[in-house]
């Protein structure tokens, strides 16, 4: 089981500060949510944590080793990233696309084994796509494409899952089903998940920890129940929110705009 840490991590996009001397300690079993407005650097932070982008200063440690000293294949065995957009340039079937997730585990001279195929099929089952295995990905809907991308990540079976807007294009049932899957996977299999989200109530329900990106390098990290309140969220989204207690739990509702 792997851990992911950052020490004194500073990230800038051109002149904009995403975070300044950020110290993160992400341990197995935890589910982290990254919240913030558009363009505040959520994806950039996620890509930096995945080692796809160099930090401006500070370092990222994957299992106590600096991520810059590991090669991509070593990283891919421990850490997987769901991208916000998938780009497919050539036709491919759903099952072949999911099987690409097995790449880091297969030797240069080997082909996918029966085990790899079983893992890929299982991943398709988790995202409810079993009966579409032979379909061409070109003809899928946006939500189905997103589920194929998630299945490919599940087939990769890393210890740390970085998810960039996992809920985009998904219907409500699949949103909850997949967040439930990652949350259970974290507590039962000791994986860790870090995801960007736009739904505060889902974040409240599924995240153990949060990273709030306020912009200008101002960041708050901590346990979800300590960070989520009307003041912090209203400042985060620069829009007033109200906390309401219902018999199904606590929810945050945006204030009705004056019309």
């Amino acid at each position, binding site marked *: 089981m792997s851990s992911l840490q950052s020490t004194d991590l500073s990230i800038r996009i051109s002149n904009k500060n995403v975070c300044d001397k950020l110290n993160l300690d992400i341990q197995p079993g935890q589910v982290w949510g990254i919240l913030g407005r558009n363009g505040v650097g959520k994806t950039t932070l996620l890509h930096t944590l*995945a080692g796809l982008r160099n930090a401006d200063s500070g370092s990222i440690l994957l299992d106590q080793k600096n991520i810059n000293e590991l090669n991509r294949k070593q990283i891919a065995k421990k850490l997987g990233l769901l991208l916000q957009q998938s780009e497919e340039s050539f036709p491919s079937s759903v099952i072949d696309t999911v099987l690409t997730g097995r790449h880091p585990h297969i030797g240069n001279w080997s082909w996918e084994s029966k085990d790899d195929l079983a893992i890929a099929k299982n991943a398709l089952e988790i995202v409810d796509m079993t009966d579409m295995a032979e379909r061409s990905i070109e003809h899928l809907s946006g939500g189905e494409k997103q589920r194929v991308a998630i299945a490919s990540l599940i087939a990769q079976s890393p210890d740390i899952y970085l998810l960039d807007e996992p809920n985009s294009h998904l219907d409500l049932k699949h949103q909850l089903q997949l967040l439930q899957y990652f949350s259970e996977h974290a507590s039962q299999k000791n994986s860790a998940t870090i995801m960007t989200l736009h739904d505060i109530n889902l974040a409240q329900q599924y995240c153990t920890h949060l990273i709030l990106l306020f912009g200008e390098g101002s960041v708050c990290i901590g346990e979800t129940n300590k960070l989520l309140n009307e003041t912090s969220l209203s400042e985060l989204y620069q829009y007033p929110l109200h906390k309401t207690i219902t018999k199904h739990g606590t929810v945050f509702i945006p204030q009705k705009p004056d019309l």
Partner: protein
Amino acid sequence: MLRPAPLIVSLLMLSIASFIIAFSVGSYSLTFEQVWSTLSSNQQNIQHTIIWELRAPRAYAAFITGGLLALAGALMQVLLRNPLADPYILGVSGGASAAALFAMSLGLSTAWLSGSAFIGALISILLVFGLSHGKGSWNPTRLLLTGVVIAAGWGALINFILSSSPDKPLRSMLFWLMGDLSHSEPSYLSLIILIAALLITFIIARQLNILARGELQASTLGISVEPLRISLFLLASLLTAFAVVQAGSIGFIGLIVPHMLRLISGSDHRLLLPASVLLGGSLLLISDTLARTLIAPQQLPVGVITAFIGVPFFLYLLNKNFSKSAAL
């Protein structure tokens, strides 16, 4: 999932058939039995001479060139992540052609042609590589634009040489530009390059499947994208250079063959790349056989035939594929 055997076996049979046809047709026709008995015995007779000294070298050159072009095309399409990419898109053939025409305009003998074409191709490869690799990132768009502009530059140079040269060498220059196998010398080097490239691509084929899903996706799945791209560029360019040196710029094979196979059997490069070599080789060999027999004794440029065969067949496959997907 992959079932490679049937496709490869049928393409191997197509390759053998195209060789036998190439051996049998021509101004002196041989029946298939005569071809077979000549190939299986070692009798010194007229048929032996026709096959082994006239038709085999040319058939060999055609097959290898077709294989080189189709493989280079398939690699370029992944490298640039662009289905319109062909082996010539980054200016390799432009550099080779400009140098070869320059050698022709100086009146150098054909022996010099290959050498100068190869040097021209190398200059073009290094130029594109250097310019698109300068400072900053090495992305497909920058590479594509640099290559296309360099190719346009070579095109202007070629037109300059053509328009300023006397009438006498002009016809052979035009033939060379259109792609012509009648003067090509069979070279073992091309065969070695083709086999070596196939072996290399077989090791990286699964990485290519993933690179086709995008640079970021490939990185997250454990691929070092930059070294892979550089090797792809150099490999595809070298294959193109050898093909151009052998036979000038023959169009359509490198663009159409990989697409035909994608439509037939999907985009797994472990199957696509060897299949491209076999289909590209067969297609060019059949085209060349037609080119030298259709209006014999006159010869047509083989590039004309590849387009005549390739265009309708490709459109048929494309159409079939789209109506199939519409029915889903």
